[in-house]
């Protein structure tokens, strides 16, 4: 691979928020990572640690492809709340009938309490997240069977 191309890639990576990039070109491949231990060229600045996003443990094992029906996924990163406030019961429970537009849960992100509505009518099959648990974008929250 052309060394100028590699240099260009490094520059691009430095200017972006991306921490690692891997390029395959025919038989050759190159991986450039910001988290590598390469010392900065001039030792006057303290190396800034790479930004690590606080990640929730997404248990992908929960999403099996058996006929769970409709799966409601987290539309954003945040904290999952099953009920409107800590002293109130959950919005929905397993086996409960829900109509399109009913509130299923709250996801809190940056102090915005997002009440998540269902876009599907049916019966709640599974509640896949515990109250107060952090959720990732796209993480399955509920499964809803057709009534």
């Amino acid at each position, binding site marked *: 691979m052309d060394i100028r191309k590699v240099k260009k890639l490094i520059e691009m990576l430095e200017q972006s928020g991306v921490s690692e990039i891997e390029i395959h070109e025919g038989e050759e491949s190159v991986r450039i990572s910001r988290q590598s231990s390469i010392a900065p060229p001039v030792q006057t600045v303290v190396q800034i640690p790479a930004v690590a996003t*606080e990640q929730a443990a997404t248990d992908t094992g929960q999403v099996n492809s058996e006929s769970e029906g409709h799966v409601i996924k987290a539309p954003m990163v945040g904290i999952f709340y099953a009920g409107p406030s800590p002293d109130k019961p959950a919005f929905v429970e397993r086996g409960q009938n829900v109509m399109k537009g009913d509130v299923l849960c709250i996801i809190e992100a940056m102090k915005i*309490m997002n009440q998540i509505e269902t876009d599907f009518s049916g019966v709640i099959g599974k509640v896949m997240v515990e109250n107060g648990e952090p959720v990732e974008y796209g993480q399955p929250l509920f499964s809803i069977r057709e009534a």
Partner: protein
Amino acid sequence: MKRKKVLLHYLADGKFYSGQFLADTLGISRTAIWKQVHTLKKYGLDIYSVRGKGYRLSKPIELLDRSSIESACSSEALGLINDIEIMFETESTNQQLLDKLSTHGIHARLILAEFQTAGRGRRGSRWISPAGAGICLSIGWCFDYTSDSLTALSLAVGVAVVSALKQTGVAGVCLKWPNDIIYQNRKLGGILIESRGEVAGPSTVVIGIGLNVDLPEQVIDCIGQPVTDLARLMEHPPSRNDVAGTIISETIDMLNVFATHGFAAFLQQWRELDYGRGKQATLMLSDKMLQGRVQGINDNGMLVMLIEGQLKEFSSGELSLRIASTASIQP
């Protein structure tokens, strides 16, 4: 309800009104007046009575007034507002708007209340707002896009409130992530946004803004964190209606800009108002407590903290700053 409102309109000027005069004016007995006064006291109003003179408030209060509020709004903002409703009392102005959602559109609808009986903070915590002592305001707004792109709206509202305060002469107000309104580590106001929408559909938000204007001493003492109000910050605080109107105006202008440009338009302003930056802090998450130094916010408005030598980003959590250790901040 009406009677309490009329009664308060008389007492608001802080002068003495005899029980007989009030009874005659309201067309009820003196005992009934006594009962109404008793209820108003329960709302947090400091009313006392002197035999032979009558009832009076310990100091005058400025009641909410629509025309004064509107005259503090820019014509652009007024043009965008569909309705301003002023209530004497309600459980919570946010709840009031959310309840309307099932039957009405609430875009650009505003509710202010003299008194909230069940004002809400985050996750069931109470927002204490005695009658006439603060500003309780909720604004409904509909966005065409999904809720995940709205998360930093929470921070942009804070920018709008601080800039409104600055315009009315209240200087030195900062923001603590994501949107606590802070004056010298004391809470002057708070913002609670509630949104509703389908996973992939447009979303409606209700923005609740609470600001402390003139809290009674006993209320200050019973709130579990350091708080302050406009009356304690300034010898001549601005008019309550002026502040309410300016906050409305700034917030509506902000929403209008946010709808097209997003948080990018407010990022720099937020950073200039960041109270936490460089301070040691504890971040309380649902399952753990983390300690570190606040670095600021990223371009999406997420909190960035340096924890055990690593930079980490957060979109939720309660941040409490340790002010004593600010002296040790690196340059």
